[in-house]
């Protein structure tokens, strides 16, 4: 994936004191985190923890009630369209038009992102993601794995500096999921892009993420590198850490303290 250098920026994403209320419910409650270029941050949390709302606010689809978001050092409220041209998004819960072929869909999105030399870029991605055998097939006729590969190709069309991924390997078989993770690792290594991943797959988070934020009721319940979190919670894997957090069992020290009480 060829690339030209752009100026250095300090943070790809800087979220501070973010608040979003839906009626009496504080869906996101004073959330702060940062993501540097070249890093991958995992956003974890149970259903209703505030992950989707947070991503929606980052993408400008949900208006925050408080706090600030800066993307690539800029204000997304003021420069939404220009910033979205430098970002991209992939989720198995969002489809591309079924009636259009893969090539037609990628052509439309290449034009929306005003990608230079779109045919060459689509051909390059078709090779990278092994789309060539079904490039002229209707998107609706693809398997789940093929759809995910197409969605990722779409997400990388504009070579985003910030890539948001919502459960990028959900419903994929282990082989395809591993293949997708490898492509994401390659992309980050080759471009220095920042990745924000919302996922329920803890093995995936352990493999891809440098840092992890675990949300509970809209707040950060735990954060750190996967290794730090496992050490702090005295667990061998992030899945157990996640369960400790969402079930309120606490860190290793807190559990030991509870057990020591008469």
């Amino acid at each position: 994936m060829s690339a030209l250098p752009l100026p250095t920026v300090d943070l790809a994403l800087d979220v501070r004191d973010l608040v979003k209320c839906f009626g009496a419910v504080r869906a996101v409650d004073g959330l702060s985190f940062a993501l540097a270029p070249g890093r991958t941050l995992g956003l974890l949390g149970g259903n209703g923890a505030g992950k989707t709302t947070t991503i929606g606010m980052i993408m400008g689809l949900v208006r925050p009630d408080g706090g600030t978001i800066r993307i690539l050092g800029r204000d997304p409220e003021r420069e939404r369209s220009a910033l979205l041209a430098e970002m991209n998004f992939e989720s198995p819960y969002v489809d591309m038009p079924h009636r259009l072929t893969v090539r037609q869909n990628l052509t439309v999105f290449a034009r929306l992102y005003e990608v230079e030399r779109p045919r060459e870029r689509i051909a390059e991605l078709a090779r990278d993601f092994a789309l060539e055998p079904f490039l002229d097939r209707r998107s609706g006729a693809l398997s789940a794995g093929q759809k995910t590969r197409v969605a990722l190709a779409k997400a990388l069309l504009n070579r985003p500096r910030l890539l948001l991924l919502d459960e990028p390997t959900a419903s994929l078989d282990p082989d395809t999921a591993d293949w997708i993770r490898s492509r994401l690792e390659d992309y980050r290594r080759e471009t220095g892009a920042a990745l924000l991943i919302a996922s329920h797959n803890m093995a995936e988070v352990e493999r891809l993420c440098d840092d992890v934020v675990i949300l509970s009721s809209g707040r950060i319940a735990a954060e750190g590198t996967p290794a730090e979190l496992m050490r702090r919670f005295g667990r061998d894997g992030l899945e157990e850490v996640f369960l400790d957090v969402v079930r309120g069992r606490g860190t290793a020290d807190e559990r030991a303290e509870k057990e020591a009480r008469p």
Partner: protein
Amino acid sequence: MTSTTIATPSRRVHAGFSFARVGAMVLRYWYLLANSWPRAVELVYWPTVQMLTWGFVQSYIAAKSPYFAGAGGLFVAALLLWDVLLRSQQGFAFAFLEEMWSRNLGNLLMSPLRTSEFVASLMVISLIRLTIGMVPVTLIAIPLFGFNIWGLGGALAIFFANLVATGWAMGFLIVGLLLRHGLGAEALSWSLMFVLMPLTCVYYPVGILPAWLQPIALALPPTHVFEGMRAVLIDHVFRFDHLAWAVGLNIVWLGAGIVAFRVLLAAARRAGSLVQQGE
């Protein structure tokens, strides 16, 4: 976390309104029509059925009434202009609905596509759909019923522009409701325009309505278009007063439609309903 350089390619992304992005969306809808023959057939099928039905009614009435015999093509013209109004609104709203049906809205809302560009593409595609649907029907009416709506000349262009403007005003409202309330508001895109049908006096003059209903009818831009059409076909005069009212009211309606759309979009962002639709 360390700071590093992000390497990305040079871009030519427009900071302001981009015709290239409008073109991308028009291409998307064109692909859809080209790939789905039932969609293309549907555009022509219903106007043709309607035109045949009303054309034969017109022929029957003209044979029985010398008054209607002198007003050649009155019902067919009314029907064709009604279809311009209905289909400009439906073309606008249905193109948007395609994104909801295909679960593609999230991809678009999280792309650099501006709201104004999205709306512009909906307008363009509604005109394309209208052209595909209406031109063949108007041509069929010439040999079948001896009525050439193109013979209205400049008046046709004025009627057309005013009806499309009203259709888009309604389209703005419907798309705003879809953004705010999701597919729960889908039925409105099919049915809302029909509420106007009896009030806009498509097939009869305003004077037929009860006195208390006439001011309401005259507040609707299409009423003046249909009154103007009857003046041309029956009295062979062009009523500039109706034109002025239609244009003035359309400015108000389009303004109100855009305001409603913006208010509903802002409400959708506050309520988080765009995220729900995106997924």
